[in-house]
């Protein structure tokens, strides 16, 4: 025991551990928003959308523009938070109708090449539209400071994220399991051909799902914007982690994304404390272990 406390002096510091748990949860919440959209799009359209991180980045940049454009009032932040993801949904809709629709029947490799090309195209467009300078969204005045949690300071804004993301999760659950549209989505993930044969306009459903997934990515980006620099390159960073989250949780699984996002958030948070030198490896090690034990991910279903 003494060697353990010598190695990890924080281990006896209960409040610190609790704060670390909460900080891991808030990281997990951002990841959940991004990865659930990616997972949803894959579940329905069978496309691995590598440009999902780019949509997240566009959400953050739209936030910068809207904050600059709207009058400096307390409500401006919340209005921007509402509008920016909608803008991303429109971008997603355009991508689906103009590009993805043409390649659903093609080789999966072609689809990957297209979404990979979109990373480069969107990255360059963002550079042209917003320029090379780093941008930032200030936290809303009321949420700029910190509150005491178990005697430790904890940023107020993260508390808001902690409250908001579960609301989104519950909302998603209600949509998936309590509405007709949700039922269609679930049906499409199981058997798309049958759904089409039953007279459902599948191509419209695809557009809607892609827009909805993009909206979630945009919401993740918009919500994360006040905590990070809005800069070129934020797309690649989030894409890798979101991809790992989706693979661990199981491609196409809603509950999988939720559990796996929280798991990865906590792993990153504690990985830094316990094994700072290999915290990045831990993420991929977890993915490897999950893939060995359950090749379809924690909540994934095998393809027939």
């Amino acid at each position, binding site marked *: 025991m003494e060697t353990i406390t010598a190695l990890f002096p924080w281990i006896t510091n209960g409040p610190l551990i609790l704060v670390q748990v909460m900080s891991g949860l808030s990281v997990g919440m951002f990841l959940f928003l991004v990865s659930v959209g990616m997972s949803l799009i894959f579940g329905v359209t069978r496309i691995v959308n590598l440009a999902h991180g780019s949509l997240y980045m566009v959400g953050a940049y739209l936030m910068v523009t809207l904050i600059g454009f709207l009058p400096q009032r307390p409500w401006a932040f919340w209005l921007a938070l509402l509008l920016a993801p909608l803008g991303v949904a429109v971008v997603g809709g355009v991508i689906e109708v103009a590009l993805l629709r043409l390649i659903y029947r093609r080789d999966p490799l072609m689809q990957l090449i297209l979404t990979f090309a979109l990373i480069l195209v969107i990255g360059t467009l963002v550079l042209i539209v917003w320029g090379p300078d780093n941008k930032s969204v200030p936290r809303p005045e009321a949420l700029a400071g910190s509150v005491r949690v178990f005697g430790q*300071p904890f940023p107020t804004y993260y508390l808001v994220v902690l409250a908001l993301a579960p609301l989104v999760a519950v909302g998603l659950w209600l949509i998936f399991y309590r509405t007709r549209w949700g039922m269609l989505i679930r049906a499409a993930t199981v058997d798309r051909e049958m759904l089409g044969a039953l007279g459902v306009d599948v191509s419209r459903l695809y557009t809607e799902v892609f827009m909805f997934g993009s909206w979630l990515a945009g919401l993740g980006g918009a919500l994360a914007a006040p905590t990070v620099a809005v800069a070129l390159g934020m797309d690649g960073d989030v894409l890798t982690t979101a991809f790992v989250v989706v693979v661990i949780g199981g491609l196409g699984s809603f509950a999988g994304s939720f559990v796996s996002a929280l798991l990865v958030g906590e792993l990153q948070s504690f990985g830094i404390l316990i094994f700072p030198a290999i915290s990045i490896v831990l993420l991929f090690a977890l993915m490897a272990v999950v893939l060995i034990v359950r090749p379809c991910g924690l909540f994934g279903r095998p393809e027939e």
Partner: protein
Amino acid sequence: MYMRRTSVTTWMVVPSMLLSLTAGVPTVAAQGKPIRIGEINSYSGLATVFTFPYKEGLLMATKEINDAGGVLGRPLEFIFRDDKLRPDEAVKAARELVLQEQVDFLAGCITSAVGLAVSAYAKEAKTLYFATHCQTSRLTWDDGHRYVAHTTNNVNQYVRVMARKAATLGYKKWAHISPDYEYGQNMWEEFSTYLKQLKPDVQYVQQNWPKLGESDHSSYITALLQSGSEAFFSALWGAQEINFVKQAQPFGLFDKMRFFAPAVGNPDELDPLGKEAPIGAVTSGFAWYDEGLQKRHPKLAEWAKRYTEWSKGKEPKLGASWGYASGYIIAEAIKRAKSTDTDKVIGVLSEGFEMDFPWGKVVMRGCDQQAIPPQWVGVVKMNAQGRPIMTEVEEVHGKEIVRSCDEVAQLRAAAAAKQKK
């Protein structure tokens, strides 16, 4: 991840096959016409925040030089290539520039890895390479050779200025946060050893090594708060340092311990941070707007105005001054050699020379072909308009603090011995 990797390789293979079809068309080398310099840098993605101002500065210098009659009666011409931040891309571009474009010299680099890779290629191809923007000291010191010259300061110079300032303030217990790669390790090593040398009673109580590009720093911030240090050093830069500062502000970290961060005082970080800037942080940077600096260097204000006109309304940045200086240093070396012959230009560089710039004297030192410009250290404050700026600027010339030629020779000998093993 497998799927992604497949897509990347396929994606890379197809266009490069197409490219190889068109690249085979020989371009007629314009003999006796412009002096051509192949410039390799990162002109897409996250580094553009630094490389765009750099390129503006370089092109401004080129325009001025050519308008004044060029070099040896010939105009200077830069041929730009994008390295996508990757050493292998950069070396590929260098090879293409040397073999197909038949450029006279190579220039460029933003990351240290790219600089070292192009430098190794230049040595092998016996082509002179002017490293212009990356900052690792290995470039001209441990791994230095006659085919590489460095036209901007290296890590050693601007970190030592920070350490010297730190030694004059009373802080004894220190921590640090640095990105875990070549540059971050080099920075902390230089800072901690020089500070210890100047002030032997300092203690290093805690270390943080986030990975390069980490976006969530809350665990490190908690660790810093618990460390009991009075001050801490940061080798973070760019978007990552903005992330760190934004996340540390709600914890009041900068009120609890003094922040020493060379990069934070540059406008590419201070402007986006705005109200969230770390007031009181000790920083280095190019405070061209500072009244004291403008008084000391009477041509500075006029240069800044010219740059703003040239770049259609942008304010100068550190990178802009580096691009501008690099253009003139390359031109001066050729002018003094009275030839574009590689050996003759190296001959001039190995003797060394000095040049005056609007921000002071730059020494091109002969023994290592390393530029030694003035260095600045200051404190982050809000100005009257509520914009964060670097103030209380103190100037130290790099030559007062930089490692001597003897020390460089020792570093090179040690590196050579290591390679033999």
